[in-house]
């Protein structure tokens, strides 16, 4: 497909028009002017397919699998162990590079956490729960916001990338902002111009290359798909998918509608397909971490079909894993982010030490280092190279802040932050409810970069209580009591993707009233 921007906008409008017409039953609602756009190009389509698509059946959502202890239809998760050998894959390490860069310019008290979902964003929190987000809009990527005028919250890097920052309350705090946090918010906002300017100055050279190669590498999906096609028919039948969809961040590698089996390649910084994580859909999910990708085998039986046996899913994973293991992205070396002019008494080891890099890194960036290391020679200094980054973190290391000031980021509903790869267990018997809607208690797992949508909500329906709507995010929450039938309900949530933010629609888990929450790690 090769649509121009105008074509794309036209098609979007046509889609919106179809959807709206279907909702209105074809009635003219006074927006006829927009319908005059070249109707000849419009093609009929069955409304139900649009309805399904528009409703997000194939949308990507929160990478969590939810298991309700006493719900037979609930999803079952089969988290696999992390490979014993820690990867040096730059895809996994690049978000750390940007985190490290931003961390050097943050105001005191803010602890930076890298975003494995988005290497171009770093999120920092302080002890007041104030969120400071720094992100990059790459200038040479089509669709960038480079045409938006610069303001005090953004700055341009030497390569034309826009560095932006904003300070917000954590979403869970928006509903009841603590006045004490206001000072943090204001001071954080005051620091933004300095932050974006400092980051913009440094966002160049190897740092930029490393991060962008993390953001934009492309899995060789056709090669992988060919391997899958060769390996799997004997196990689960032929691949009937016409082509790989979404290759890059998310790739549907295999599908067999007859058995409702799909195999998906998902970047570890992306989420699983929505349907997989929806508690209402029975799905078996196998998952392995391979070179920064998750392989997800989904058996999503509907309409009387039976799910695949777990042993078969394991067999599928074992069969296709080597193809994924063989894949490696390529990081292109570029000029260092700064240079050093060799002076009297300099040696290559002490220059490396001075800049906090290894000699190997220095040699990698300056292949003729030894021969050209003469007085007055200019050598490139890497800011942070992949090899200099910490070894690939285990999943439960992700989002663990750096440094001596490391706070305890274990689950704390009061600030809504959790580490990844945790199993959270809730025992709910009753409490107070400030849920926005739908049920007395709501547990939501969201991601940092899309807090409002990509989440999984567990409505504890046996717990009866009135629902409230929070329609003014600055207003204090109202709380009303609720009770749960059958004494208590136990819910377990496994977090996979490493950068999740847990919010509870109800603050009954804030420790001040009722409900309990405990956490244990699910992976070593």
């Amino acid at each position, binding site marked *: 497909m*090769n649509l121009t921007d105008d074509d794309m906008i036209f098609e979007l409008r046509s889609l919106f028009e179809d959807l709206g017409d279907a909702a209105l039953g074809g009635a003219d609602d006074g927006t006829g002017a927009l319908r005059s756009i070249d109707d000849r190009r419009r093609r009929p389509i069955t409304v139900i397919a649009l309805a399904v698509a528009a409703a997000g059946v194939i949308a990507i959502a929160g990478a969590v699998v939810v298991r309700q202890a006493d719900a037979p239809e609930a999803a079952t998760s089969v988290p696999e162990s992390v490979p014993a050998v820690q990867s040096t894959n730059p895809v996994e390490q690049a978000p750390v590079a940007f985190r490290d860069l931003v961390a050097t310019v943050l105001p005191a008290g803010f602890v930076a956490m890298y975003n494995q979902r988005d290497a171009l964003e770093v999120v920092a929190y302080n002890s007041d729960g104030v969120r400071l987000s720094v992100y990059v809009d790459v200038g040479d990527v089509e669709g960038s916001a480079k045409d938006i005028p610069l303001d005090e919250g953004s700055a341009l890097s030497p390569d034309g990338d826009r560095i932006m920052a904003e300070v917000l309350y954590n979403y869970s705090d928006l509903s009841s902002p603590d006045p004490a946090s206001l000072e943090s918010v204001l001071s954080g906002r005051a620091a933004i111009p300095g932050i974006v300017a400092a980051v913009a100055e440094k966002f160049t050279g190897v740092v930029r290359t490393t991060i962008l190669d993390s953001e934009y590498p492309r899995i060789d999906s056709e090669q992988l798909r060919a391997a899958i096609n060769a390996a799997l028919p004997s196990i689960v039948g032929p691949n009937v998918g016409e082509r790989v969809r979404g290759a890059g961040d998310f790739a549907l590698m295999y599908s067999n509608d007859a058995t409702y089996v799909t195999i998906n390649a998902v970047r570890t910084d992306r989420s699983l397909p929505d349907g997989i994580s929806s508690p209402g859909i029975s799905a078996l999910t196998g998952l392995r971490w391979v070179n920064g990708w998750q392989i997800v085998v989904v058996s999503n039986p509907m309409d009387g079909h039976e799910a695949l046996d777990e042993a078969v899913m394991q067999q599928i994973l074992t069969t296709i894993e080597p193809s994924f293991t063989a894949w490696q992205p390529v990081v292109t070396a570029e000029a260092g982010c700064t240079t050093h002019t060799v002076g009297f008494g300099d040696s290559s080891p002490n220059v490396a030490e001075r800049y906090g890099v290894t000699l190997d890194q220095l040699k990698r960036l300056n292949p003729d280092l030894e021969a050209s290391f003469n007085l007055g020679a200019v050598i490139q200094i890497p800011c942070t190279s992949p090899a200099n980054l910490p070894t690939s973190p285990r999943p439960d290391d992700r989002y663990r802040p750096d440094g001596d000031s490391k706070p305890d980021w274990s689950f704390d509903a009061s600030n809504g932050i959790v580490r990844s790869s945790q199993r959270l267990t809730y025992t709910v018997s009753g409490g107070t409810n400030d849920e926005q809607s739908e049920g007395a208690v709501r547990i939501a797992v969201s991601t940092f970069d899309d807090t409002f949508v990509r989440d999984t909500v567990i409505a504890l329906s046996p717990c009866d209580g009135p629902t409230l709507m929070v329609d003014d995010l600055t207003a204090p929450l109202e709380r009303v009591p609720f009770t749960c039938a059958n004494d208590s309900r136990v819910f377990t949530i496994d977090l996979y993707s490493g950068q999740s933010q847990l919010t509870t629609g109800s603050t009954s888990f804030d420790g001040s009233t009722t409900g309990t929450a405990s956490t244990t790690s699910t992976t070593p």
Partner: protein
Amino acid sequence: MDDSDEELYRKYSSELLRFAAVLVGPGDADDIVSSAFLRALSSPRWSDVEDHRPYLYRAVLNESRQTGRSSRRRLARELSVARADQVEPDDLRLEVAGAVASLSMPQRAVVYLTYWFGMTASETATALGLSQRATERHLHSARVLLRRSLQ
């Protein structure tokens, strides 16, 4: 619902239905708008709301976020039925619908208000109760995702 509320419903229900249809599909749009309206009217702050239109858009967006999740199982079944009925293929429109479906709810909302109404980022931000920066980012992210899918 008093007379003024009924008038508001008549005035805005059509455009809110269109908005909801983009967010959750036409099948649920009516329920979404009705629920959002009733929830808004029952809010103690409703009488203090000066500009009802953005308030109602936000209410629809909030309602859609909830219902969009709970109805997915049924919609998945509808999809399988649609396949069985051999829906007339339209690759382009399905691609566009799929691309839109891959957007988050706020992204869909922002794209809709931008491309359907031609709202500016500032106007969209006001309508959805977002910051202008967040709106710009949602639109930017949506454009990137749409282009990846469609270009």
